[in-house]
């Protein structure tokens, strides 16, 4: 690339995904995303999965530009192959670290990868010893700001849901079972459905479990209770 003739800058995202909600439970992590990719406010592409299986221990979900995430999948695959050269499966922490460096570097060049990424997985502390493995959720924003959490909601979900999920987490914390965790996610999705205009009612829940590996979700639909619309002040 001739740096004097062309300058690449990301101006705005094109086709985008919205919130990602993820929650740790006793033996793993559950991740909920809806299945629409929007073109501005138009619900343009339906039946799209916003989750990608990296390997048996790591799942990654995105919000933000779909094309950027698609490109990122190739980058991640190359990393998976690089680690395979040393007979290693890349773990969620390492992938999170790598993507942090990548997104931060692009942000510094004023050419960001326009994604909010949620890396979910099970981190093996010792090889082939499931007793010592721990659930992991790492978030990276498009500015390269990265952190680890026990639960997260991104996008508009960040404004609406973090408190609700936190309240549920405080009840049982790390002793949450998978069913408990999924129930929390489904309740959270309803909230985004009522308030986020680019959210959709068709969704999937993927999980990474220490015993099962990565299990991608089947599509599910909810209707929700729209009776609040009548009490909503602007609704005629």
């Amino acid at each position, binding site marked *: 690339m001739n740096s004097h003739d062309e300058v690449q800058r990301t101006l705005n995202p094109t086709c985008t995904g919205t919130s990602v909600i993820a929650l740790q439970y006793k033996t793993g992590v559950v991740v909920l995303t809806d299945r629409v990719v929007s073109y501005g406010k138009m619900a343009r592409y339906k039946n799209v999965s916003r989750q990608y299986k990296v390997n048996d221990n790591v799942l990654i979900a995105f919000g933000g530009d779909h094309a950027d995430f698609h490109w990122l999948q190739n980058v991640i695959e190359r990393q998976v192959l690089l680690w395979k*050269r040393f007979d*290693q499966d890349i773990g969620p922490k*390492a992938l999170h*670290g*790598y993507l942090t*460096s990548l997104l931060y570097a692009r942000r510094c060049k004023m050419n960001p990868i326009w994604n909010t990424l949620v890396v979910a997985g099970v981190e*093996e502390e010792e*090889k082939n010893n499931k007793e010592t493995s721990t659930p992991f959720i790492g978030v990276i924003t498009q500015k390269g700001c990265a952190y680890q959490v026990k639960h997260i909601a991104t996008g508009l979900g960040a404004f609406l849901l973090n408190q609700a999920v936190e309240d549920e987490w405080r009840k049982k914390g790390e002793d949450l079972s998978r069913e408990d965790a999924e129930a929390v996610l489904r309740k959270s999705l309803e909230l985004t459905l009522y308030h986020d205009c680019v959210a959709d009612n068709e969704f999937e829940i993927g999980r990474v479990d220490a015993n099962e590996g990565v299990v991608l979700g089947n599509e599910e639909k909810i209707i929700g209770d729209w009776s609040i619309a009548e009490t909503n002040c602007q609704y005629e």
Partner: protein
Amino acid sequence: MFRNQYDSDVTVWSPQGRLHQVEYAVEAMKQGSATVGIKSETHAVIVALKRAQNELSSHQKKIYEIDTHSGVSIAGLLSDGRILARFLQTECSSWRWDYKQPVPIKKLAEAMQLKLQANTQYYGRRPFGVGILIAGYDKDGAHIIQTDPSAEVVSMHGTSIGARSQSARTYLERNVDKFEKSTPEELIVHALLALRDTLPAEENLSAQNTSIGIVGKDSPFNLLDDAQVAVHLNQVSTHPRTTAGAQGGAEPMQM
């Protein structure tokens, strides 16, 4: 050794299919003072004999920490060895920058392989005249990796390189079944006993001429010298010496 018309530079094959320059470089490694590495299920130990040029000089540093989970010991041209130790240090730290965790030892082995092999294939370069033992602990357990100037990089249960190292390897072969379940202290004693066998009968391991490096599960790399070594040498002196360094050959070069 042979002096012939096919040994002028490393890019020339001999009619017998050998690279003489590489073999000569391996000889340089064999002239260095010995080092021994052994691993158990949970730990990896390296010990080295440090030479001093004369009574005025200090004993050379042969063991380097390259990260919290790994260290190396070198035998041969120590100045070449230091360059390789520093290369491994940067490999470790640049991996940590990207992945926020220690590098897998297999990756270090691969990086060494590529770096060493390059100097055996391009005109104008010479092979590194040094062998290295990499000791490390990662998710796959403990590792001892042996490298030599020919770019052979091999994982070992236990090994020794340098002058009269065959005696040490004999000790290791005889005791190999004991290493897997050894405690760290026992492993150090085994390594020192193997190292002692490389010395001629009149010489002995001392706190000044011996270095110990140990790394393992929940145990970051620790380099022991002088007084700390003396503690382990006391253990060793309770074992009588049965073999002396019997490897024949010329007086080793001052390394």
